[in-house]
């Protein structure tokens, strides 16, 4: 299990780094897919089957396609002349490494973080049902809001993208 974790975590982070480091937007997009696959595997290792699936379907499937589509549409080339200054790189890396170290410190300070994941006493395979039930009972209110959110997003995308307004 541990080995698997390290493998998938490596895939995930490597994919992430790929997004950041590669020049070509297309490569970045594909790296992201790789990263998300690793992530989905980790979800599944955590018995979150629904989330894992959604991660693949929504992110790797829909969102990435959208990204690729736009990249193609805009005909984006690799950033030929990367003029990112050394200062920026070092500064950015420094900032983020400090941030990462802060996260690690916090995790280290969390007693629960050192404990092994407790075993599940019941089967987690019905998580679709459980999540769904929760969503349509307790969380029906946020769900409605999400509905409005999506409506707004739809209207917004149309307004912004119409070639000519009627």
């Amino acid at each position, binding site marked *: 299990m541990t080995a698997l974790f390290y493998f998938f975590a490596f895939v995930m982070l490597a994919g992430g780094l790929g997004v950041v480091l590669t020049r070509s937007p297309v490569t970045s997009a594909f790296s992201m897919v790789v990263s998300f696959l690793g992530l989905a595997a980790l979800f599944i290792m955590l018995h979150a089957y629904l989330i894992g699936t959604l991660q693949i379907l929504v992110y790797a499937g829909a969102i990435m396609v959208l990204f690729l589509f736009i990249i193609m549409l805009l005909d984006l080339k690799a950033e030929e002349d990367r003029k990112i200054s050394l200062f*920026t790189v070092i*500064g*950015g890396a420094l*900032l*983020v490494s*400090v*941030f990462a170290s*802060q996260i690690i410190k*916090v995790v280290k300070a969390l007693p629960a973080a050192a404990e092994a994941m407790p075993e599940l006493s019941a089967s987690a395979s019905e998580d679709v049902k459980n999540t769904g039930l929760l969503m349509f009972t307790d969380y029906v209110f946020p769900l409605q809001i999400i509905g409005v959110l999506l409506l707004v997003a739809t209207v917004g995308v149309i307004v912004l993208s119409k070639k000519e307004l009627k």
Partner: protein
Amino acid sequence: MMEQLPWLILLLPLVSAATILFVARRVPNISALLSTGSALVTFVMSILFLGFGDDAVVPAYPWLWLGGTLEKGLVLEIGLQIDQLSRGMMFVVTTVGFLVHVFSLGYMRTDDGKARYFAGLSLFMFSMTGIVLANNFAMMFVFWELVGLSSYLLIGHWFQKDSAADAAKKAFITNRVGDFGFLIGILLVWAISQTVNFDRMETFFAGNPEVGSGLLAFAVICVFCGAVGKSAQLPLHVWLPDAMEGPTPVSALIHAATMVAAGVYMLARVAFLVEASELAAHVIAWVGGITALVAALMALQQDDIKRVLAYSTLSQLGYMVMAVGLLAAEAAMFHLFTHAFFKALLFLGSGSVIYACHHEQDIWKMGGLRKKMPLTFITFSIATLSLMALPWVTAGFYSKEAILAAAWHESAPLFVIAGFTAMLTAFYMTRLVLVTFFGKARTEHAAHAKESPPVMTLPLILLAIPSVIAGLPFFYERVQATAPEHHGEGSMLVLAASVITLIAGAGISFWLYKGASEDPLRIKLLARKFYIDEIYQGIIRVFQDGVATLLSIFDRYIIDGLIAQLPAYATASIGSILRRLQVGNLQGYAFLFALGVILLIWITLFNT
């Protein structure tokens, strides 16, 4: 009713002044008569006063009471003190005042600002009466300031003349310097004795002879500062000669007879204070003595007829102040009394001369007036002799002798100074008379001079009488003037001194100036009055105007810069620097965002 009468003598001139100011201004002749009329009434009333006993009580009115009820708290009253001192002084003030009013009717007949002039005179009469009758320091200070104002107005009567305008300003400001000390003195005396009322103060000091010696000396010297300013003692004497820019009757009344004597009067009023502090008494005596001497020296070389008289006045005031300091306030008051008459006479006489010579004041441009203006000459000579203290026949002799006697008793150096001053007095007065009235007329104006009209000569004659007899008991006792009791019993030495100095001074002067057409002595130091005016000018320019300009720059640039502009500039600069953070591109914002996140987390988590 009689109790309230004293209020009338105080308020009548005020009413007169106000009426002229607000109603009668446009009719100058009415104004003049109004003012003169009020002066006459007050003169009559002051004679009525003489019949008052010492126990005459005039109800006082509270003017301002502070810090509590009438019983508990500081009450500043308007109250009148009618004792011998004030009655005698009132007689002098109203007599000279009335005569000067009459004289002015002639002297100012054609003046444009006649109404203004008489309003000023009335205002002066009001203020001076207030000083004389005041029963407390606060009231005295109020009227002290008001005489300053009327003096300012009258000196600056011909305000379009630069010299007159400057002299008026100088007089007021110099007096204010004295008042600075005076006010502090009043406050200190109040703080020591818990009262500003003279009677209660006297009672207090009689009951507490040991009270705060050092502080008291300081307080008394501060009070004396007021007299230094008003009576033009060294070092604040500089305003009085300049004050001669005013019309001559004003010089006679205010700057010779009455107002300048107010300082001496005030010191006499609080003589118990001087007595309570030996140190202060010494200071006062020496200031007076030095003033007497220095002023006499300055008078030696003056060419302006009025200025000679002005320095003479200074010198005589010095005598009086010295006497106060020598704890002989009665002698001082006595000299004040006699001096008022003969000095007023001298000024009015000089006014008559000036009037006759078409406002020429330089004695070297006169000469030979003896024949053309006999009345003026005679009266002027009487007054001169009185000033020179011709033994036994003049008023001045008696009073001056009293002072010399006091000096002889108390302090040998001061006696020497006083004697020498007497000689100088004889010298410069002889010079004045010789150059003005004898010899030949040296200018056209002098040659065609005529005797002044009766309205002007009459006051001269009237004043000549007391100039002679005021020193005699039958007169001064009748008008209740204050005089030393042991008068006439001075030692032979004192008498000899006065005779010798008189003869020496007059003789040398006669020998030098007999028939001279120009001054044989040319002592520039004296002619320029020891350069004191120039020194003061310099001091004012450097220490007042210079410092003022420096401070003004300091205020404008340093204070404003430090307190206002620097913070404003700093704030704006920080604003501009902060604005630079708003780099405008997204990557920059992302960096700053990241920095913010890290700082925020760091402060939240690890900074406790």
